[in-house]
């Protein structure tokens, strides 16, 4: 598939790759929200972790890892860039269509942007749940 320059750039120089510790580390930390969406069988798994400053309520840092195609990697890389410095509500306002537009994703890759939006919502929901805040949100993978 011939990709646009922005996808290639995020794929070749992904921003904010990593995590804030192992699965069990981050589970125990109240300032971290984790979203793990997709499934290996579907060819896409995104893990998005947000670190929230509990005084200001701002997303201080965000990190991702992604098993998926170039568009999936670019979508999750972009999501981490956009999340930094935002409030949780501002984070929830990020829509997949904005990601599609920014990266010029081809039609067959729109599901990658949907997955990135799911990852954002799921990470924010996880943070809220840990901190006893109201959650209206979605399903994420669970590690047993």
């Amino acid at each position: 598939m011939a990709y646009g320059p922005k996808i290639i750039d995020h794929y070749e120089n992904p921003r904010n790759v990593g995590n804030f510790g192992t699965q069990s580390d981050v589970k125990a930390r109240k300032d971290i929200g984790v979203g793990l969406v997709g499934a290996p069988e579907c060819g896409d798994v995104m893990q998005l972790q947000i670190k929230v400053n509990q005084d200001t309520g701002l997303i201080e840092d965000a990190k991702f890892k992604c098993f998926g195609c170039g568009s999936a990697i670019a979508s999750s890389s972009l999501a981490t860039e956009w999340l930094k410095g935002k409030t949780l509500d501002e984070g929830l306002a990020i829509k997949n269509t904005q990601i599609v537009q920014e990266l010029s994703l081809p039609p067959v890759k729109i599901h990658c942007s949907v997955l990135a939006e799911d990852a954002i919502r799921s990470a924010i929901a996880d943070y809220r749940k840990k901190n006893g805040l109201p959650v209206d949100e979605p399903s994420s993978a669970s590690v047993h």
Partner: protein
Amino acid sequence: MSLKLPIYLDHAATTPCDPRVVEAMLPFFTETFGNPGSRNHRFGWEAEAGVDAAREQVAQLIGADEKEIVFTSGSTESNNLAIKGAAYLYEKNPAGSGKPRGHIITAIHEHKAVLDPCKRLQKEGFDVTFLEPGRDGIITAEMVEAAMRDDTILVTVMWANNEIGTINEVPRIGALCHRREVIFHTDATQWVGKMPTDVEKDQVDLLSLSGHKMYGPKGVGALYVRRRRPRVRLQALVDGGGQERGFRPGTLNVTGIVGLGKAAQIARAEMDADADRLFRLRKKLEDTITGQLDSTQVNGHRERRLPHITNISFGFVEGESLMMAIKEIACSSGSACTSASLEPSYVLKSLGVGDDLAHSSLRLSLGRWTTEEQIDYTADAIVKSVRKLRLLSPLYDMHKEGIDLSKVQWAQH
């Protein structure tokens, strides 16, 4: 000499034309341009002589008589003519009789050019059994025998698989079919020109082959149709001027046929040396990659396979992103993201390769001009890229933390 990029390792998709093939074809565009059907002037006779020579070259490559070669547009057409043509002619009960028209045996990991004609026949009232290979990808004579019924009229099993390169038990399946008086067709697109073929010894009745998989031109192929013991008859699928003994009417593609003939002649002379060399290079590629990376597997039987095709799954890395990382290497992937259907490879799934590993696979196929230097570069690029992508992969982290990925409840879409 410095390495020229990109490197072509997709010879199972198509091969470049051998320059000797192009040279043989050229006069037939401009000088010897006649229609071989023109029986009463020199232009027609010369074109016919070119076609006759090519027919003999193709026949010699597979141990057939030249009267048994029907030129077509390629393997897809050859497969359609063989499967549908035989089914319509050997049917046990006519359409509309309400009874099954006849039973056909094939396998689920055949090429679509075999599966789709079989599925059409199924809709038209034939019964079709789709055999499932074992984990090694191989269809055995025993599997075919177990599926045979009194009303079985046709067995169609490919000689070597296009995605994984595994070799089915063609001579044994052929012998079985002859014993049971069932017509045996094999799609030998990936086999012919690479491996020795003898339709007599191998007991094949119908065989499809293609020019562009063996360093010939695209748009030309052939169907071998056995003439004696048994004499195989087919119902033509196209009506017209009676060319190719009525099996395939239409003015002959003289340039393509001449090219196919030349490609067959070269293959016959050089296949043994090519096979030895490519086997060594493929082995080196596989050994280097699997030696340096954990959680990596070669798909399909390790020995019973073509010398030049390998299919490798890289755990925790997705195929399309891997292909982006090795963009200087042209190859194929079983990943859904590289196909129009968004489904991972049905061939790998048929071997019991999980969807996750099917998404993570590369098919690398070597050819006549593949060099050791190219293989070294490729192995190195793949190892580096897989390592880099695993740093990005949440699944590889989880794997290293000892989490069993099959026990995770994934949020499905």
